[in-house]
């Protein structure tokens, strides 16, 4: 955790030649000659005989850079690997990267630029729901294609977006089922940062606890984003002694929350806490020793032992430095270019309508998280895993569900 070696500077890393042919991918790429440009691109996208342009749109500057950096790295790695295998329909992928600067109008503006000026065939990007909501009308109007990597609150579906992270029912229900059984939990305390994602997730969690698990929610509360003092909340938890604390606190608040829990003498032996907002990225800031023993509920952990993941982790570290960590969203971002490649090859075309239509039922056997499949609602079938954190900042997977069908508009949970 406290290794003093630092990442190689960006300019140095770019000098390192990257040709990481891992075991990922599909059958050998077909040559461009088999797919004449006038056939594979009929809507004026930036496709020629040698290259196809795609966009990456994340925040490199501003408050969200902390979260989005990993996604950019994963998407670039995937694209480099695809190019090393011969590209898509015989064409190399050329990346145009724009900075959303943690500012939602900027996201909308840059996405319009990518779609109307650069004519990119697909965009990999966005992180917060706010940025996605800002670009959605642009993608629908200009008929673009967005691969969105973050786990999010659901209640959305678009022809123009492929959601590679989990929606809220996928991330919450199976984990709650498991913890209820494992800890024989009856009482729950829901806490979160005060914005749409924690509130929607907790709404779903509350319905599930009350209607399905027969448990009781004895507290639900929200703290402003950026709040750094949780003393009163911790005292309340101590007094009410819930069987499970269910937490979705994000950003700088997250670090304060875990540090202060530890300092207040709360231990995982005395208090079970499940969080849906901590990945390996966040643990870097929190410190493994402050969160060891508590649980995270999400679809991917860096420590997954399957062959796909080991190859992925190895390639990621070779490309971005030995100290890199890979969180849930980073992995989901990595899926984007591969899912797009598979859909383009299935459609035999770069045209957005064709690719969007071909996306349903695309399978990816090589995903680091294991097998995934695109649902016709453009979300992924995926598993839910419970990771128990260790002091070294990695999680031990203690539970893995079956593949869960994405259900962005869950009935009975609204």
């Amino acid at each position: 955790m406290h290794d003093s070696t630092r990442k190689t500077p960006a300019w140095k890393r770019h000098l390192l030649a990257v040709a990481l042919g891992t075991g990922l991918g599909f059958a050998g790429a077909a040559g461009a000659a088999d797919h004449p440009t006038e056939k594979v691109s009929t809507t004026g996208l930036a496709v020629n005989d040698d290259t196809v342009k795609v966009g990456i749109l994340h925040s490199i500057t501003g408050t969200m850079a902390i979260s989005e950096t990993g996604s950019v790295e994963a998407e670039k790695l995937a694209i480099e690997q695809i190019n090393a295998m011969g590209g898509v329909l015989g064409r190399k992928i050329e990346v145009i990267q724009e900075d959303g600067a943690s500012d939602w109008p900027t996201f909308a503006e840059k996405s319009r630029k990518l779609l109307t000026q650069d004519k990119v065939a697909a965009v990999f990007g966005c992180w917060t729901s706010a940025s996605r909501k800002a670009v959605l009308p642009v993608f629908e109007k200009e008929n673009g294609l967005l691969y969105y990597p973050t786990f999010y609150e659901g209640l959305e579906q678009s022809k123009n977006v492929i959601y590679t992270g989990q929606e809220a029912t996928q991330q919450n229900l199976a984990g709650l089922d498991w913890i209820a059984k494992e800890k024989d939990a009856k009482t729950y305390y829901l806490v979160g940062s005060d914005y749409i994602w924690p509130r929607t997730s907790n709404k779903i969690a509350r319905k599930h606890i009350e209607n399905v698990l027969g448990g009781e929610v004895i507290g639900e509360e929200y703290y402003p984003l950026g709040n750094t003092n949780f003393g009163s909340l911790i005292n309340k938890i101590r007094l009410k002694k819930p069987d499970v604390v269910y937490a979705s606190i994000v950003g700088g608040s997250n670090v304060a929350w875990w540090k202060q829990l530890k300092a207040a003498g709360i231990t995982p032996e005395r208090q079970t806490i499940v969080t849906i907002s901590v990945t390996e990225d966040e643990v870097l800031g929190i410190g493994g020793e402050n969160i060891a023993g508590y649980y995270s509920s999400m679809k991917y952990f860096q420590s997954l032992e399957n062959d796909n993941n080991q190859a992925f982790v190895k390639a990621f570290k070779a490309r971005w430095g030995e100290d890199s960590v890979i969180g849930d969203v980073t992995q989901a971002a990595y899926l984007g270019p591969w899912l797009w490649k598979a859909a383009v090859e299935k459609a035999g075309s770069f045209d957005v309508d064709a690719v969007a239509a071909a996306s349903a039922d695309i399978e990816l056997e090589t995903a680091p998280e294991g097998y995934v499949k695109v649902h016709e609602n453009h979300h992924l079938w995926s598993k839910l895993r419970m990771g128990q954190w260790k002091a070294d900042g990695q999680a031990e997977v203690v539970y893995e569900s079956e593949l869960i069908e994405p259900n962005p508009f869950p009935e009975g949970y609204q």
Partner: protein
Amino acid sequence: MGGYSGQELTAIFVMQGFSGLSLFCVFLLMALGLAIIFGQMGVINMAHGEFLTLGAYITWLISELASTSPWLQQVYFPFAIVAAFAGAFLLGYIVERVMISRLYHRPLDTLLATWGLGLILQQIYRSTFGPREVSVGMPDWLMGSWAVNDMIDIPLNGLFVMAVTLIMTVGVVSMMYRSRWGIKLRATTQNRLMANAAGINTKRVDRFTFALGCGIAGVAGAAFTTIASTGPTTGSLYIVDTFLVVVFGGAASLLGTVVSAFGIAQSQSILEFFLSGSMAKVITLLVVVGILMFRPQGLFASKVRR
């Protein structure tokens, strides 16, 4: 609160009291530096949070160096605080010299210029240390809690922040009211022309005062690594509350800053306990706005001529 034993309630009362006190110390420590810069000099320093961040990063750098030896790991923290002060003081000195000193009679321009400076510093931190948050390795004596009895746990890091706040407050007060610099500063604040005429180098006083305020922000940054996050935008988490405390207390009064920090911290902490986090904030802000409507100069207004 039915169904709880008297002993439980007492324990919660004690810990809740402590939690209010430690929030008070956080508020006070971060407001001290600003109280000097904004309160005494009238400079609206929007980059104040970034000086705090600098202190936090200096602490982190030193903790990384110290992590090579378990012995160093235990003792580095006091040195990190001194280094954080020195680093932020130095940067403050340079900023005053290069930027602030040219803007003394243009408060709105200062606001914009320091806001820009804050953004620049944030991006420098991001490019230098990476956008992700870093974790400062804590010595063992700062981790965990002091178990007074079976039910009462007092957080050690809270005690530590309290001690730092106490030392800094006593230090600042005695400097302002017991030292030659203090006399010069107060003279400059009260009447710059007369102070000049009396042979006080007011420019030097300004420079030192601004740098000192920044240095205190650096100390706050170092102390806050024990309780919260360290990242490029850490400072922005505190800046709004800091201005709130200083303005509410009455800009030119140190006593006002102390009382206002105490009042805001206690009301927020108690409201958080009985209501929820967001509601506590809303009510606290409403009360502050309400009081400021009747006392626009803040709780403790001292008569200042500029």
